[in-house]
């Protein structure tokens, strides 16, 4: 059982690391927000599922899923609000150079 939890947590950490690389590498706000949403929607989920498996069946698992659903509800809202502010402020999205 612990082995399964370790696998899930390591997979979650992998996606979190990829997201951090994306946040540093990508060229502008819009593309970076994609990387952040990758963290929230897959990395955090896998990590918290791993922790829930490690904890075993108890009330804590229910609480963990409450935190998870809270993350799932609020992160799109925050990303959308930030990007809407960026669009309304007149920020142009990055475009690749024409070949």
């Amino acid at each position: 059982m612990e082995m399964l939890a370790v696998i899930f947590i390591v997979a979650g950490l992998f996606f979190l690391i990829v997201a951090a690389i994306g946040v540093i590498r990508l060229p502008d706000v819009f593309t970076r927000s994609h990387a952040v949403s990758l963290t929230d929607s897959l990395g955090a989920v896998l990590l918290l599922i791993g922790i829930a498996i490690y904890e075993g069946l108890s009330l804590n698992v229910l609480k963990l899923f409450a935190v998870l659903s809270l993350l799932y509800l609020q992160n799109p809202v925050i990303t959308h609000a930030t990007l809407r502010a960026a669009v309304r402020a007149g920020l142009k999205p990055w475009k690749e150079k024409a070949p």
Partner: protein
Amino acid sequence: MTTFFLGVLLVLAALIGAYLFRVLQGPTIFDRVLGLNGISTKAIIMLIVIGIVFDRVEMFIDISTGYALLNLVGALAVAKYLEQKGLP
């Protein structure tokens, strides 16, 4: 197993460093807001892992829930403010 979770904490701290780079360096103010949002997600996960290390998960999950709710309100307030103010 405690060693493993301490390692997870170290990796998460290093990731917060990556986001901090974006907050400090970001060309526009929106990059900074985005970086702060990413840091807060990491902090929520970190709090839960800290709870496992200290064997007090039920308490630390409550703390992380409160942190998540406060983060939502704060991020929305900043976004609203920037929307009215426009690009500085």
